[in-house]
């Protein structure tokens, strides 16, 4: 698996986090409703995206560093962590971060988003994708030809940064669109019917990704 697909996967994963109400858009809408201000909805999106970005970046940096040192057990270890976390989420489906605060500033929101993304294992899911990105790769350009990847590649700082930014941009775009649409037109009644149990889907996906990362 190489070429453009890992990049699409990185963006789709970001979009998925953008859709999940517990990752941020719902908090942005709540803050807007509390202050009766559309500006507040917009203003909340950026610290939420930054907190998410930091959480993702920490995991990507860890993986990149292990890849850089040629850590041979990275693949099985990552697979175990992923699948193990997925199993925990399935076994404790009601576990959630304990946060009680609605009056939040920029720093609070970024911290909250960091905690939510980390507790969710948002960055972990990037593991199999990172394993599939060719060494020193950037999104493939039409005029550019990529060398074949080694089995456990090397993740350059530029590629790592691209992964993080692409993921977070996709998340911010989707999260922002939903937040504004719900705030302006749709209303919160949608929560009652459309808020499917993404946590269970996510837990199963974590386990699947763990297994997948062994074969990619």
């Amino acid at each position: 698996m190489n070429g453009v697909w890992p990049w699409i996967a990185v963006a789709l994963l970001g979009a998925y986090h953008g859709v999940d109400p517990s990752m941020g858009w719902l908090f942005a809408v709540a803050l807007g409703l509390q202050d009766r201000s559309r500006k507040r909805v917009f203003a909340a999106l950026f610290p939420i995206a930054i907190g998410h970005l930091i959480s993702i970046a920490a995991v990507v940096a860890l993986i990149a560093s292990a890849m850089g040192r040629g850590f041979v057990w990275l693949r099985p270890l990552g697979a175990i962590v992923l699948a193990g976390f997925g199993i925990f989420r399935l076994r404790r489906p009601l576990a959630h971060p304990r946060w009680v605060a609605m009056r939040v500033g920029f720093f609070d929101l970024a911290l909250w988003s960091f905690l939510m993304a980390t507790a969710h294992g948002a960055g972990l899911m990037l593991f199999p994708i990172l394993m599939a990105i060719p060494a020193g790769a950037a999104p493939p350009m039409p005029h550019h030809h990529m060398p074949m990847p080694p089995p456990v590649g090397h993740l350059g700082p530029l590629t790592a940064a691209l992964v993080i930014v692409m993921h977070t941009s996709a998340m911010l775009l989707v999260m922002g669109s939903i937040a504004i649409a719900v705030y302006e037109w749709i209303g919160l009644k949608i929560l009652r019917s459309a808020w499917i149990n993404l946590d269970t889907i996510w837990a199963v996906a974590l386990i699947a990704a763990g297994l997948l990362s062994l074969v990619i």
Partner: protein
Amino acid sequence: MALWKPDPSFYPSPRMAAEGPRENLAYVVVFNPDPANGRHDALCVLDTDPQSSAYGKIVGRAEVPNVGDELHHFGWNACSAALCPYAPHPHVERRYLLVPGLRSSRIYIFDTKPDPRSPKLIKTIEAAEIAARSGYSRPHTIHCGPDAIYVSALGAADGGGPGGVFLLDHDSFEVLGRWEVDRGPQFLGYDFWWHLGYDVAITSEWGTPKMVENGPDLDLLTQGKYGHQLHLWDLRRRRHLKAFDFGPEQQIVLELRPAHDPTKAYGFVCVTVSTKDLSSSIWMWYREDGDWKIRKVIEIPAEPADPALLPPAIKGFKAVPPLVTEIALSTDDRYLYAACFGTGDLRQYDVSDPFNPRFAGAIRLGGIVSHAPHPKAGALNGGTQMLEISRDGRRIYVTNSLYGPWDKAFYPEGVRGWITLVNVGAGGKLTLDPNFFVPFSGERPHQMRLEGGDSSSDSYCYP
């Protein structure tokens, strides 16, 4: 188990809750005022579906295994607060009722599924566990919070103070510990609620177990030793922010009813009796220019009465105190109801302008002197006490007992328990339902919880 879609009884806003389906069942706790006879307290199920052949009848009863618990207030494991944006867990179920024994300090946990008419006891939290992990005893109010289940407690394990709040894990129901990080000057406890939109909690004051369990102590009362303060807390940091003192003559500060709309920063609290003139009062707390303040908004005077008709405790006053011991706020924050355990009045106030409540009507049921009748039962004893308003604000369920040892002081003949229903018309007009009357024999009902939530069970994070 987690659900695939949010529990349908969770509503983002109070407005949506009011539009939901009506309650077909209600849960009510009954206690045995004379534990020496060995009868167990119970969680009963009342049919409230007018289409049902058993409408207005008790259709289920689950007894607790011990005697003398005095079941009193209770609450759900989960409610609309599960939709709060910062700690969402919408796929839990509103399923378990947590029922504290106010005297025994046990908390019984009943499962209302698979058969809502036949709740099953699935777990008992013993007093010793609560004491060991939180230091508290006499659990009272249960609120399903965004992050845990919050329980207020009247006092410490030895029957003294301080009273406070402790937390239960809302998945495993384990006692997580004391809630307060810094309690400041707060010592007495009773009720607890919050403004989720403002990150503040409020607590009120009754007395420690030693001060209340042997009936009202007239010396403590005349000396102003029962609770006369309201406490404001930082909900996030669990720290005391401010104490509001109503004055030592304002005795026994009970039910807290914050506005349901999380953008509104005000609420109401009742003071049972003024030692100056036996009046009851309702106070409002509110936020203004970033600061929290209080003011008295309602005063209900005592009614002159023939001393021959009064119990020994109040004979000398030649008047019936209203004894407002319960207030309830409709889900739309439009009407505030006050239950006068002394006179029997259920009083309705239009609080559209919360600073200027407008008296809108009253219905009298029981009462120390008047024994106001119900068409189905004749003269009633006990008086209007616990109120539970349906989410749509159209029905108010009423029970008539205050608290075992205190019932005696005001109704020495003993309280014969009953539940009845007051309907609220489209324009707010109160009418007593002539057919809905549930009598009890040898036991007294206290708080009720309506299927799918009611006006005092849920907190909302969205307006």
